[in-house]
């Protein structure tokens, strides 16, 4: 069907990025192909080992999904922070991924959850890790006519999950820094640690230095302190622009990491289980 559209063409899902860019005159004229109504691209399903989210499923549906709330709490927290009710009723993870903003809130937990993105062009399918979709600010690895169809997330035993975002105001905010953390904490020891950062690099990134410090270690003050330094000094490579400063962004990576660990470890410590689950 796509091939039948002659000349320049683009996919549109919620249009919440595309319409803004078009109004700014930043887009070359093209035929827009609405993918939001394609049944295969919508909805959330669960298998024994994974959760599959259709690329054109609006955020509101993700937030309200029982299975996502149970298995992927950090994703729910992130989606709930996006824009406003109106934006969440329209916007999609497919659009968030393809738009390739370094501040994409939906992408940050996807990266922390090791999400895999299924991309299709005609009959050809490929599967790419969420962290590799964006190749630079506004640039993605998607080729002409490549459609994101779904996002696959493996179910894993982890009792820590957090998404934290700092924006310039309480709502309707583009992140200055965002962080997602998932890990498993047993008897004070962390494992399976994944940390993703938004808005502090040309794309959403993994905080591998901090992860390495935390992985397999007892969650002591010293370990946390070293991880905080690592995330601020080694993982984050932020810039100064009119939204924030590099120095602040760096420092806030450490704050958000500390906060994510603090909230979760406190909760785990108190009640023995993660209340988010």
């Amino acid at each position, binding site marked *: 069907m796509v091939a039948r559209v002659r000349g320049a063409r683009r996919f549109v899902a919620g249009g919440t990025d595309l319409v803004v860019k078009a109004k700014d005159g930043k887009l070359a004229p093209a035929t827009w192909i609405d993918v939001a109504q394609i049944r295969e691209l919508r909805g959330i399903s669960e298998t024994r080992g994974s959760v599959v989210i259709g690329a054109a499923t609006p955020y509101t549906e993700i937030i309200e999904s029982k299975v996502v709330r149970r298995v992927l709490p950090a994703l729910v927290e992130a989606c709930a922070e996006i824009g406003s009710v109106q934006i969440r009723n329209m916007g999609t993870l497919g659009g968030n991924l393809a738009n390739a903003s370094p501040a994409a809130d939906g992408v940050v937990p996807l990266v922390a959850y090791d999400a895999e993105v299924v991309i299709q062009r005609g009959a050809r399918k490929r599967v790419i890790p969420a962290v590799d979709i964006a190749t630079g600010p506004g640039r993605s690895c998607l080729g002409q006519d490549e459609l994101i169809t779904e996002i696959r997330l493996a179910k894993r035993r982890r009792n820590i999950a957090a998404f934290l975002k700092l924006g*310039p105001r*309480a709502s309707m905010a583009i992140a200055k820094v965002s962080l997602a953390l998932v890990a498993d904490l047993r008897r004070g020891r962390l494992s399976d640690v994944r940390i993703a950062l938004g808005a502090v690099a040309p794309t959403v990134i993994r905080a591998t230095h901090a992860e390495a410090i935390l992985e397999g270690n007892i969650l002591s*003050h010293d370990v*946390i302190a070293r991880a905080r330094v690592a995330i601020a*000094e080694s993982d984050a490579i932020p810039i100064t622009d009119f939204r924030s400063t590099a*120095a602040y962004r760096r*420092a806030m990576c*450490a704050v958000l990491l500390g906060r994510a660990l603090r909230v979760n470890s406190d909760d785990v410590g108190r009640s023995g289980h993660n209340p988010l689950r």
Partner: protein
Amino acid sequence: MATDEVTEGASWIGRSVKRADGRDKLTGRAKYVDDYAPAGCLHGATVRSAKPHARIKRIDGRAACRVDGVEAVLTASNIPGTNRMPLIINDYPFLADGVVRFVGEAVALVVAETPEAARRAAALVRVDYEDLPGVFDARDALKPGAPRVFGEDNVFKKFRVRRGDVEKAFAEADVVVEAEFETPYQAQAYIETQGMLAEVEADGTVFVAGSMQCPFYVHDAVAAALGVGQNRVRIVQRPTGGGFGGKEDVPSIVAVHAALAAHVTGRPVKFVYTREEDFLAMSKRHPAFARVKYGARRDGTITACEVNYILDAGAYATLSPAVLFRGTVHAVGPYRIPNVAVDTFAVATNKVPPGAFRGFGQPQITFAQESLIDELAARLGIDPFELREKNALRLGDETATGQVLRESCGFGEALAVARRESGWAEKQKRGAQRRDAETQREEASVIAPSRLGVLALNPVAGAGAGAGADAGAGADAGAGADAEAGAGRRVARGIGVSANYYGVGLGAAGKYIDRAGAHVQVQKDGTVLVAVGNTEIGQGARSSLCQIAAEALGAPFEAVHLLDIDTTRVPDSGPTVASRTTLMSGNAILDAARPIRETLVKVAADVLRVAPGAVMVDAHGYRAASGGEALTFQRVASEAYGRRLPVATQGWTVAAPTSFDENGRGDAYVVYAFSVNVAEVEVDLETFETRVVEVTSVHDIGRVVNPGDAEGQVEGGVVQGMGYALCEEVVLDGAAVKNGNFTGYILPTMADSPAIRVRFVEAPYSAGPFGAKGLAETPIVGPAPAIANAIRDAVGVMARRLPITPERLAEMVWEKKREKKIGRKTEDR
């Protein structure tokens, strides 16, 4: 007529009647300028300068003309009349003639069948420039040898105020505090962008309708630019989606563009700006620099104040002289200070010209001056509230300009109400105890890990990985924090106060245009038409003016209809600015209503068979003082018609005299409103985000005509003031606006808004309608310094620059910590 004529509960004044325009605006039925599309209407787009300062060598519109649907490309040479906006200093060309002076200045116009074609063609107009040196900082512009934007010295206007002997007073003072402050461009951010629709009517009258605050400014501008008589220009205000000053002067430019295009093409032409265009080229609040110095005796008596205040006025003068005047008069704060030296300057730079914005030159200097009052309080060891109370202007006192406050000064009461209602005493005590504890702890913890773990991570501090051990995991409960705010956040609470006064009306700077007219006409059926020259721009003028008319006539509020404003219906009433509408148009309505009321009283006396002196008038109608049934207004009106009596009249009012001499002495404004704001904030001790928890906003505005609308005004002002304090800033990249849309320009949302407690103190003004003064602007003046002072209370640093973003606050706190550390190290040696 005196208010005491009105019986209890029978008055329209002081009632929260429903807004007449509320339903239409809420349901979308109100028709704004862009909702009008007369047959054959063309659409305009504006070609804007890409250069901050350059000579125009050539404008080539040939490519633009070839675009399908383009009807005309117009430049300055098409303007038949005067190519200068008539205002204070007539320097602002409607279309650049020869030189451009800021990025975004209008250079040419394109009109086409569709807005898209017009925009596309506008992008094709080629302008060849020869660059000229530019200047982008007002302080640089004052230096000798700076590139010249205006006149010999880049100074549009300067004022001075001299009182007593400041030098001597500072020398004798026990405590002297001094600091420099800086504030940014703030955008009015009205919801409806600028827009005008012009049409040449069959008889040649130029008709312009659109979004505006000041129809008579537009009237002057269109007549001047087209070179036609003012009696051949008709300006109509459409429902206006906000103004806040942004629809004061610059709509004249938009209107002239539309009128010029209509005049040349003979067809209706509409210009509606995009948000980006509006940000780029329209007016804003002036960025400002201020150096303020106070001297006081040990007992807290303020003895001297010196102010140096610079407004960055951009490329053209616009209203800057008047904005500067208001800032000058109020520069030292609402205090009794015997020795004053104020020097103020409005300075030209190659940037977008700011103009009017709610507060009009006061919020900048009040932020500076009220922040420094708290510094003074801290240095004196006096409670900031007490220091203000001690020095507050009272009845009989002289202001900085030597104006004696003869009446209507509810400042003392406003301070008392604010102190009580905000719970200042307990909250302030709590903070003081915390600070004592903190100081002790800090002294005891020279080697203990910092409670602000982030400090060690601040890369600017040069503290790298090695200092990481210093970074507490945050598991400790946050020694300095007042509260765990949930989600692991540690916050410090703070409370701050600010006080301000506000000269109602145009004052001495605008006295020659401070008059207003009204037309009141009672109909046969007892309904009433009222026409005034001041506009409804969302502030609720329509309701209050109808209430004043109803009260004056003894008519039901529902029977009064205020006409949409049309310059052919009422005489020039000056601008709708300076919180002057209730006062000026209100008085004009009273003047018009007086003879009608006298007539109606006579008629009623006749019907009731009593003497005119024995007739009582109230919201229920006309009755005999001795009792009995009231005659409805409708009945009395109909009786008056039957007797062929005049019930249609013109009213006129002129502001009381004002003055201001070359040394800043005089009665600068007719009367002052007084405000006290108390803000409570929560500062996150790790992210330095500030949340305003609660604001108590107390105002003496004289008699309150409509409490509901008045409260709305205050709430809006508080949130706008909070935006100014914490997040709003139009960022310029040297010359051009960088964040010119609502993605980049951060306005507070409802989720950011604090709980707001509004209180009014009513010190009636004898020359105001039923004792009213004015309200619109004063609510935005105080919140920013109150919030800044609350932040200071929470984290111990005084912000010298707005907005107080988390980034700036973090830097300040980090810097203070570094200084302390260095201090300790040197002490250790």
